[in-house]
Structures are given as structure tokens and as C-alpha cells.
């Protein structure tokens, strides 16, 4: 699965630590998500959508 996390984070000028804190996960998890090594659980995907104020399907794609 692909995602636009890195782009969305860069647009907001957030660090990995900022996003990690907003999501309640570790910086390693943010890195693993951005590099496509890990697909988030459904609750975390919803949380990501809320943090970026975008629908899930505009952040994640097959």
C-alpha cells in the first residue's frame, strides 16, 4: 500500500517527532509508515486522517 504521509508532513513543516506525538506512536513507526514498510491498523489510519484533516482514501492508495 502507498501513502502520502511524507508529503503531507512536509507541507505542514512537521518533524517526524511532531507527527509521532500527534498520532501517539513512536518516531520509528512514523518512519516505517512513510517508507512503506508498515501498513497502519485501521484505528491508526483513521487517526492519521483526522490529524491531516483528509479522508483516508486521499492519504492511502493501493
Amino acid at each position, binding site marked *: 500500500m502507498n501513502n502520502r504521509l511524507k508529503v503531507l508532513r512536509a507541507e505542514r513543516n512537521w*518533524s*517526524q*517527532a511532531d507527527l509521532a506525538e500527534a498520532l*501517539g*506512536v*513512536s*518516531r*520509528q*513507526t512514523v*518512519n*516505517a509508515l512513510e*517508507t512503506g*514498510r*508498515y501498513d*497502519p*491498523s485501521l484505528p*491508526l489510519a483513521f487517526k492519521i486522517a483526522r490529524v491531516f484533516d483528509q479522508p483516508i482514501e486521499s492519504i492511502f492508495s493501493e
Partner: protein
Amino acid sequence: MSGLFPASTPEWARQLSKAVLAGAVFGAVGYGVGRLAASFFPGLDPTLPDLRWADVAAGLVAAVLLVACLGTAVTSIDRAALGRVLKLEGPAGDAEVRAVRLQSAILGLSGVIMILPPILSAVSVPVTASLAGIGLLLVLHTTLNLRLYRSVDELFRRVVVEAGALTFWLGQGLLFLWAAAERLAVAPPLTAWDIYVVLMGVYLVVSMVVTFRRGLA
């Protein structure tokens, strides 16, 4: 150390070279420490006649765990280096250092627990005391593991679950093949210790693969 390799060297080759070099250095140091220990404890004969292949394998698994323990503990001293190892933007923070040190303690304890049964069987310690000691260490190990599991997020938990599932799948396959061969009288019977050591060896390899694959190291 990166200056030792040509720029075109793939990352896996660099990591493998470093691992081999570290193995050689730690192997030599371990041999020296072993020889020294043997001179201090003459009763601990390193050429024990009842030393079995599973004991040697347990020693190998324990050595890998103890080296990993030492490596992570040393890396956790330098926050910038730890940040690079964990692939973070910038140096590691307090929470990351704490988590890595807890993992280091668990790795070290795992190594000690792994090698204790062959050592205790070779020295004259009462069996009850040996079992009680191993039991206490196992309780401590489980407590630390639970504490770590409760403190981490879903990625780390996924790695633990995936490693456990893969180990079960591989382990049951290997065990079935051996059990079938044993039933057909073409393979010697195994002991619980043999099976445990193989299982832990498989778990060690699988958990390293899953950890790298998920980008945790």
C-alpha cells in the same frame, strides 16, 4: 568504518562485513575469557564428555544474544548514533533510549537463561537451587518482556506477533518432519532441550528478519 568500503558496496554487504568482523573480534575475546575462566575454575572442564550438539547450539544462540545486548547497550550511550540506527530524524530521545536499554536488558537476560542449563549441569550446584534460579530469572525475563510490550506502539507489537507466528509455522514444520522421521525409525529421538534450542534459534533468526523488514533496525 564506512571509509573501508568502496562507495558502490551494497548496504547488505557492508552490514555483513561488519557483522563478520564483530564476530571475529568477539569470538577471539570470548575464547580468551573462556580460557581465563577455565584457569580460575578448574572444575569446569570445557571438554565435558556429555556436552551435546544442543548445548553447543545453545552457546551459539546465547553468544549472539549477549553480543546484541552489548551492542545495543553501547549504542544507546550515543544518542546521535542510536538515532541513525533507529533511522530517526535527529538524535534519539529519552523514550527511545529507555526502550532500547530495556530491550538490551532483555536480550542479555535471554542469553544468560539460554546458557545456564548446560553450565549448571556441568558444575556441582544442587538441582533444586539450579531450577529455582532459572525459574526466578524466567519470571524476571517475562516481567521485563511484558513491561516492554505494554510500553511500545502497534508497530513493535506487530513485529512480535509476526515473529511468533512465523516461528510457530517454521517450528511446527521442522518438528513434524523430524517426528515423522523418528516414527519411521530413520532419525534419533530428540529431547525437550534439543527442541527448545532449535526453536529459540529459529525465533532469533526470524525476529531479526522481521525487525529489519519492518524498518525497526
